[in-house]
């Protein structure tokens, strides 16, 4: 099963190395990882999608909490949350095919961000299912290059797993 963790970390040098190193040496699998600054410039948020059963997840969370630079770990999988991914795709597009591809872009509310002589580059955001469907629809035209950001996520409603809401749950 896939789990979505949101991890707040101190924005210190080497913090990404510490987190990623922990996953590799303990044999945990990272499915995707997205890192960026939060509303507080000293704090970054990592959104990590991990594959594993409950036992593995328990270990992942506990081991992450042991890192001094990790401020808060929340497993939001079971909560209501909004998740998005951004994809950029460069697709083969002869002038004759451009119309079709632009229609696909419309359906997915994607945008054309660049135009080459024989290519179109599209940008699309959405959840995993949408991104997958978008990719599948473009595949027949020939995807030259594609890049995905990895999932980022926030809890829905007024709940938050933010820096100012740090209360580690007791075991």
């Amino acid at each position: 099963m896939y789990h979505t963790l949101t991890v707040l970390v101190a924005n210190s040098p080497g913090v990404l190395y510490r987190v990623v190193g922990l996953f590799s040496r303990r044999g945990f699998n990272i499915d995707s990882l997205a890192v960026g600054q939060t509303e507080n410039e000293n704090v970054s948020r990592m959104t990590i999608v991990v594959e594993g059963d409950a036992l593995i997840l328990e270990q992942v969370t506990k081991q992450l909490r042991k890192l001094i630079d990790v401020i808060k770990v929340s497993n939001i999988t079971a909560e209501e949350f909004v998740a998005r991914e951004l994809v950029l795709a460069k697709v083969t597009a002869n002038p004759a095919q451009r119309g079709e591809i632009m229609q696909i872009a419309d359906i997915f509310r994607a945008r054309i961000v660049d135009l080459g002589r024989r290519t179109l580059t599209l940008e699309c955001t959405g959840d995993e299912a949408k991104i997958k469907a978008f990719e599948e629809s473009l595949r027949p035209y020939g995807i030259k290059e594609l890049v995905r950001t990895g999932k980022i996520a926030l809890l829905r409603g007024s709940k938050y797993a933010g820096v100012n809401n740090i209360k580690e749950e007791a075991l």
Partner: protein
Amino acid sequence: MRKSGGEILIDSILKEGVDTIFGYPGGAVLPIYDALYESNIRHILTRHEQGAAHAADGYARASGRPGVCLATSGPGATNLVTGIANAYMDSVPLVAFTGQVATSVLGKDSFQEADITGITMPITKHSYLVKDIRDIARVVKEAFYIATTGRPGPVLVDIPKDISGARVDYENPGPVSLRGYRPEQLPSSRRLKEAADLMAAAKRPVIYAGGGVVSSGAYRELLHLAELILAPVTTTLMGLGCFPGDHPLSLGMLGMHGSRYANYAICECDLLIALGVRFDDRVTGKIAEFAPRAKIIHLDIDAAEIGKNVRVDVPLVGDVKEVINLLVSNLKAKLPGAWQEQIYLWKKEFPVYYEENGHLKPQQVIQEIYNITKGKAIITTEVGQHQMWTTQYYNFTRPRSFISSGGLGTMGFGLPAAIGAQVACPEAVVFNIAGDGSIQMNIQELATADNYNIPVKIAIINNGYLGMVRQWQEFFYNRRYSFTELVNPDFVKLAEAYGAVGIRVTRPKEVTVALKKAMAVEKPVVIDFVVEREENVLPMVPPGEALGKMLG
């Protein structure tokens, strides 16, 4: 007041109450060594950086205070790696300082450059690369705080030469604030009640105590708990001495080379109370058959240890001492019954023993070291057969009296650790029980012992083999002794060359005399005990077997 980075560093270390540093100078730490030159800190110059790390480790284990070591960049720093990993596996508070090449050439494969913070990331609790002289004081404060609180462990601080050499107006750092670090936790009252209820209801309880009891200083609490609910106590290698070995409730060590009665008790108990332990594979044997009839209460300060290797019925996250105190207030004294009787019978029926045959046996040597020191010495060991015989034939009754590399199993640990322990406890008798293989891994530290007249006694259990590996080859590899036989130097001459006293013992009746002689001189002494070559450590649980299935 203007101070150099090196001076700020030494001042900050002094403020942490440190009196001794073990180290080795080099190019990139020159500014730090310059500041040490006239400081009040005692610096012990080891003969290898690994020796410095292990000596700091031994110092920490013997004293309960953090150990400090110092090395230069590149090879100096990488030579610390084994020592840091060793301290990490055994949760020893160690702060390692390393010099680094100047920030202007950092990352350019400069002379004696190694990314030591990167290299040690998996084996430190935390690490720092200091890039601003104004951070030094704060970093030192944080490093000691992290190393000594919660589950102790090593912290590395890497300081480039231009930072330690720069000068700045010195300011005191404010209080340490680490947002992501909350070492103190207590279990909920619901969990405490669950644990107390299980203890009250248990018919056949066993306490399994480890290094966490030592770190926490929970000896009296452990004794009180055990006597209150009449639970026999078995300890791990790291826990030896945290419960008096001569107490009727003591089961000695459990696991691969544990006592029969400890392993039987684990197999039969209905409640296992695990205190400051981590269910290591050398302890549990086949994990699926470990304590098969028992509910498990696991108390540890590190939440990540709970549920890591075995399923636990009641998790208790917190400091062992504090939590036992909370637990006992809910418990009533129990009366002895069939279980205590059973333990007594097992202990009578299956004592550890060896056969005397007129030849010098390793077990006899250790027993006589116990007798002559009246069990009051600090014993360090290397790793292998001699280490296991020490756990069997030296009855540890006091905490911090047994210092051994448990988790990492580092050959070469014992001699520098003995030096560190002797520096921490100048009045104590310190013995390093070693193998003829292990002793040669850090034998250069004899020069350190001689240099500072640190009167450690080294008992080499010399069987001309890497004995434990040979034993495994005998049992599991059809006696194919592949590269385990050693051609050794003359240890007596070697000792003398280093300025130590060298004694050779080949017969059983010479043991006492040699030990008395060693105890009488205020110098480092090496005794080369030439013992029966193919003696085995028994009993033994074969790897991957259940604890009940012991050989021998």
